[in-house]
């Protein structure tokens, strides 16, 4: 039995402004080490909201969230930041690279923040990740000189820099064409199979979801199939 990386028990969340609207109802599931999980559902079913809770960025919810066995409730903002830095890698729909920096520096930033490795080592590791994803030639370009597909691959490299327990993706292929979507999917698949990387991807792309190990389907704030 593989180690449980992320566990959500009875998570509830409501938007309270202007009237109370429940968006998540009794969400309970867990993700094990090495799993490639996708969360699907129609627009507005709460899947993104769930992801932000799971990523510790949203702390306004009821229920318990455990990452790597640790309860997230009651932690301070900087402790949560540290957990995001160390244990979670992010890939967003809109790549969100920092245009002020080069590609390499973008990848390095979370690593420099963690300070687990020296700057030279972080740089070396960043280059390795870029090589794995086949974009090492772009390393010294500015982030805004890249195409959408390239940016998304850089974002994946950045997510990998601190060897996270889990990579979370919010529609990582939502803004890409078919060809680039396939490239990104193949990278995820490769990470999962070769490096036993745990992945939790929110998507409404059915073909993407069907190729993952496990699909969590949501509707109206509930998990309807797991």
């Amino acid at each position: 039995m593989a180690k449980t990386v992320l566990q959500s028990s009875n998570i509830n969340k409501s938007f309270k402004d202007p009237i109370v609207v429940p968006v998540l109802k009794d969400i309970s599931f867990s993700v094990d080490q090495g799993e490639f999980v996708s969360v699907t559902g129609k627009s507005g079913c709460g899947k993104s909201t769930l992801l932000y809770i799971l990523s510790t960025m949203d702390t306004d919810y009821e229920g318990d969230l455990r990452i790597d066995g640790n309860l997230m409730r009651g932690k301070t903002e900087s402790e949560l930041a540290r957990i995001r830095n160390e244990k979670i890698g992010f890939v967003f729909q809109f790549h969100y690279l920092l245009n002020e920096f080069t590609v390499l520096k973008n990848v390095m930033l979370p690593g420099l923040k963690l300070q687990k490795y020296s700057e030279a080592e972080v740089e070396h590791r960043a280059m390795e990740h870029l090589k794995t994803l086949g974009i090492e030639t772009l390393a010294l370009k500015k982030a805004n000189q890249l195409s959408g597909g390239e940016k998304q691959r850089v974002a994946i490299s950045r997510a990998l820099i601190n060897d996270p327990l889990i990579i979370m993706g919010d529609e990582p292929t939502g803004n890409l064409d078919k060809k680039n979507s396939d490239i990104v999917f193949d990278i995820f698949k490769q990470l999962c199979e070769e490096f036993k990387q745990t992945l939790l991807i929110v998507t409404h792309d059915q073909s993407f979801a069907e190729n993952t190990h496990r699909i969590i389907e949501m509707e109206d704030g509930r998990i309807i199939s797991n």
Partner: protein
Amino acid sequence: MNLKLIADIAKSLLMARWRQSLVAAIGVTFSITMFIALLGFMNGLNDLLDGLILNRTPHVRLFNEIKPNPNQPINLSNDFQGGHNFIQSIKSSGGRLEIHNGGAILAALKVDPRVLGISPKISSQVLYNSGTIDITGAVSGIDVIAESELFFFKDYIREGEPLDLKNVSNSIILGKGVAEKLLAEIGDVVQVTTSKGDRLPLKVVGKFQSGIADFDKVQSFASIATVQKLLGKPNTYVTDIQIKLKDLNTAPSVAKEYAKIFQADAEDIQTANSQFSTGSFVRTLISYSVGIVLLIVAGFGIYNILNMMIYEKMDTIAILKATGFSGSDVRKIFLGIALSIGLLGGLLGLVFGFSLSLIIDQIPFNTAALPTIKTYPVNYNPKFYIIGIVFSLFTTYLAGFFPARKASKIDPVIIIRGK
């Protein structure tokens, strides 16, 4: 600590918007430049005006005032001790202007550690005789060397050599106004008559100009020995002892103490010239106020630019937070940006302020009242430069504080979701 990384990120954000940052820095530079130039110039003027009076005023002056005796005979009578006595038609007593036991007092003052220097003086009323006209005036007997050291006597000599007062017997340095009335030049002999009717010819060895025209119209200087001779007094006779202290602020208490010990009247500089320090204080206050207002205006500029930068960089802040930078890291980044603008602008401001001061220092400024001044006076006290840089950092810190706090509180979820 992550300071290097934070500084690195702050630098990149700053450089990404370098034009705006530059405008903000120029705002600070301008205000610090004006602050430095204004304070330097104002204080230069203050020093000059203070110098006119304060430099030439002893911190404590010992003398004997002509006044009624506070111990009237009735106080000695046992019969009238109980009541309050009213006495009419009291006249001032004495008329003895000499400081009693002057030699001993001088010796005692010389060993007092609080005293920087002393200069004895004799004041005497005279008439300058010019043909048939007598002009009232005053001749002060001074010790030229002590007077030059303590009260900058030399600076006010326009013609002639002050030391001649000591070296040439029966010599006099005339006030500029007196010399003009007497049509006297250096080398001429003027006749001086004392209040007792004694007349003495004195050789003119110099002219002085204090900057206060009324003073120059009556005042002349001679050596102590010459004035003693003029008045027909022995060589222990002095009417004033001028004392310069190491610490000006102790003057009132020292004056009280000396008055008691030496049984003479003692006047301190604060009492004698209170209006001058008030004037200086007000001028300094005005220059500081203007400087600080300028800095506050610059501070608002920085506040605006940082606020704008935060709106522009919402995505960046959100992504930094999502990838593990805490709110306090983000706050430090934006405070770092604000302080870099403040430091850069402030340092440039110091350089420009110094340059502007140098330029002001070159502008000709000739006035008959101020003989030693040829250009506008400027004070280069490093204190202003330190205050300038500290203030530029302080205002930029304040200007950066609120935007930085706002940035630290940005919720990444809203930004990322909002796209």
